[in-house]
């Protein structure tokens, strides 16, 4: 017979449901505790004015010092909320915050806080659309380099430029460094080298006889080196004459390591092409004239010859002796007459030297163009050489980074170039030998080097006009400022 435990209502407490289970308060306390813990965590940071907990991601490497100073960039409250309602004021305020530090190095419009594009102003009738800094430089994406902008950022506009610009002088559809990318402009348009200086590359790369009679074999690096060179130039002899140089004729005011040192007579030419006008050194002790403007050369000649005339009156006396006339000395003449004769003699000598320099084709005319143009004093007007410092108007090329490659690998036609008008730039296909997606293996491999737009092209222009004097202190950058809405004070 099975056991009979009795009726269930005898065995259980019928009012059990009225009693709160013992674990329920614990569970309730745990819920409240978790909620409180969360609230305490976020408010503790806010009380300490440390809003880094609310960051949407790690700061970029360059802005790491601002990680707990949100207000340095987020100068306007409720930025995202305003964005939702289509207000651009907050975006402009953030742009201004960027330009507070970067404005000194980036060309921008102070009133609208818009950074200028390299090509801005080319087509004034269709201004560029407003682009916030953060449109391309997305912060809070981790410790990457913020200046490394994805190709997609550029392609967004450049794959169809006519969408955002009415007209454009640029190639309207570029989707990368592929077939859609145009040839380098100067090659595509078959424009000649506009430099107004005579140069025969083939001749200079052939064996030459030096001034001392020895044979010379020049190489590219004898004249072309990237950046400010520290090693001496083999064919340069900086002399007392150097007060101006051909740098003045170049548009780029500063030397960058990426670019070739501009050709300067004193550094690259003078050792072989000295402007000798008096081999004996009798009248011109330096034997040569400085590589200067014709007016300066005239002043130089006049000075040297006046000195010579003062020290050698016999030269004037001999020159001024009338045919069949009696001999005389300058001392015998009244001072005024003597001065007149001296001046006439100097002028005559200056004219002779200038003829030698400008007309006989032994000095200036060897390289410079000036034709029949004369200024009011009858001096030749020498065209500035205008040797291009940068060949790419809207791109940059770093020779320094390519220094391991033989120059002739890219500039293959240099050895056969006899005229200045020859453009010796390599075509874009030469670039694509390396800067293309990797294909093939082993000996047949090609490409594999980055094709990022930003490798050659930069969005920003350097500032123009008056550059604002930077006013920030180190403490400004690394210190704390008051949060939004309170009076900004810099802790010092």
């Amino acid at each position: 017979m099975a056991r009979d435990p009795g009726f269930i209502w005898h065995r259980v407490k019928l009012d059990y449901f009225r009693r709160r289970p013992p674990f329920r308060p614990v569970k309730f306390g745990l819920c409240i505790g978790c909620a409180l813990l969360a609230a305490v965590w976020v408010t503790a940071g806010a009380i300490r004015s440390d809003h880094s907990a609310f960051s949407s991601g790690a700061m970029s490497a360059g802005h790491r010092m601002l990680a707990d100073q949100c207000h340095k960039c987020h100068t306007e409250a409720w930025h995202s909320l305003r964005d939702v309602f289509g207000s651009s004021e907050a975006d402009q305020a953030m742009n201004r915050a960027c330009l507070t530090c970067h404005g000194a190095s980036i060309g921008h419009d102070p009133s609208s806080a818009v950074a200028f594009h390299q090509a801005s102003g080319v087509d004034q009738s269709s201004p560029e659309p407003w682009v916030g800094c953060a449109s391309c430089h997305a912060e809070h994406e981790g410790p990457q380099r913020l200046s490394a902008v994805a190709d997609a950022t550029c392609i967004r506009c450049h794959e169809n430029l006519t969408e955002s610009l009415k007209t454009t002088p640029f190639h309207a559809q570029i989707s990368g460094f592929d077939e859609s990318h145009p040839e380098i402009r100067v090659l595509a348009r078959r424009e000649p080298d506009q430099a107004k200086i005579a140069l025969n590359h083939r001749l200079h790369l052939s064996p030459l006889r030096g001034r001392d009679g020895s044979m010379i074999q020049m190489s590219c690096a004898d004249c072309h080196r990237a950046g400010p060179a520290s090693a001496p130039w083999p064919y340069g002899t900086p002399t007392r004459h150097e007060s101006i140089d051909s740098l003045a004729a170049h548009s780029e005011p500063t030397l960058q390591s990426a670019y070739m040192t501009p050709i300067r007579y004193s550094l690259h030419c003078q050792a072989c092409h000295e402007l000798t006008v008096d081999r004996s050194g009798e009248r011109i002790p330096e034997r040569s004239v400085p590589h200067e403007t014709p007016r300066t050369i005239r002043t130089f000649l006049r000075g040297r010859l006046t000195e010579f005339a003062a020290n050698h009156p016999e030269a004037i006396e001999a020159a001024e002796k009338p045919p069949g006339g009696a001999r005389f000395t300058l001392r015998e003449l009244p001072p005024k007459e003597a001065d007149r004769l001296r001046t006439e003699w100097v002028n005559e000598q200056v004219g002779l030297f200038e003829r030698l320099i400008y007309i006989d084709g032994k000095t200036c005319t060897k390289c410079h163009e000036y034709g029949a143009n004369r200024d009011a004093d009858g001096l030749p007007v020498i065209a500035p050489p205008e040797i291009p410092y940068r060949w790419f108007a809207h791109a940059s090329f770093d020779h320094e980074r390519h220094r391991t490659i033989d120059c002739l690998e890219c500039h293959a036609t240099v050895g056969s170039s006899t005229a200045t008008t020859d453009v010796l730039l390599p075509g874009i296909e030469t670039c694509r030998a390396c800067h293309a997606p990797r294909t093939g293996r082993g000996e047949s491999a090609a490409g594999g080097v980055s094709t990022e737009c930003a490798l050659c092209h930069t969005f920003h222009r350097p500032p123009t006009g008056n550059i604002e004097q930077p006013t920030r202190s180190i403490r400004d950058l690394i210190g704390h400022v008051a949060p939004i809405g309170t009076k900004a004070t810099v802790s010092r």
Partner: protein
Amino acid sequence: MKLDSSHRPWLIGTVVTIALAGVVYAIHAASAIECPRGDSAVGLVFGVLAAACLLFAWLLSARKRVLLLRVGTLTWWMRGHLWLGFLALPLALFHGAFAFGGPLTTVLMVLLIVIVVSGILGAALQHALPGVMTAQVPREHTYEQLDRMRWNLRQEAYELVVAACGPGVETEAERAALEAFAGHPPHEPKKITTVEGHQTLKEAYTLRVVPYLRGIENGASPLADSTQAVMFFDDLRPRLGPSLHPVASDLADICDEARQMVRQSRLHLWLHGWLWIHVPLSMALIVLMFVHAIMALYY
């Protein structure tokens, strides 16, 4: 909650929503210049939808507590809690572009993942375990009454043994414990006749049954295992007089019922234990979610 055919519309709705959201996200990601972000228009829509789902899921507890709030049945709210709560995770991932972001958003995402995973685990357990409970615990009791039922079993076993063998020094401690619990002494027969094997039964009761029922050697006791328990009582019966065999059978039955209670406790722990993680973390999530929404709009 049983995941039966009544969930089909919710399942289809959830799958379709995730698929649609996935397509929208893919288009958005393909057209975005950099990585898609939570503060873009599409990202914000995902964020708002995810927040709405979480709020709805959180409101289940309010609906449970405020019984007067008769907006939809509890079953409907529970289904919504389950599926919309699940939907919140992919929407939040689309919102954050599968990145965890800064400290607050990382904590939010970790919390959400833990909550959703614990919720999925809980739903699976609540779907499967009731069947297991029915099969393995035929004498299921109200969970809150299990302690009381265990005392009842101890009292029943005591009275059975004392009725058959009479009280003794061996059972004195148990008698005192039962009296302390119930507030009155357990029922004891007035006339006691000594039968063959009563001492053996008393020893078995004192040394094996009482410790097991008291729960002091639940795992180690042979009575904790049904097979060993059968062997124990099969071994005991031949050593008892025939009149004590029904008592031994009843004791075996009491031990079986106690074993089912242990099993029920264990299953109950699985059935509801995950809530100890799920619910408190949900509270923290809701608080941080509001903070995140406000601060994201602020900056």
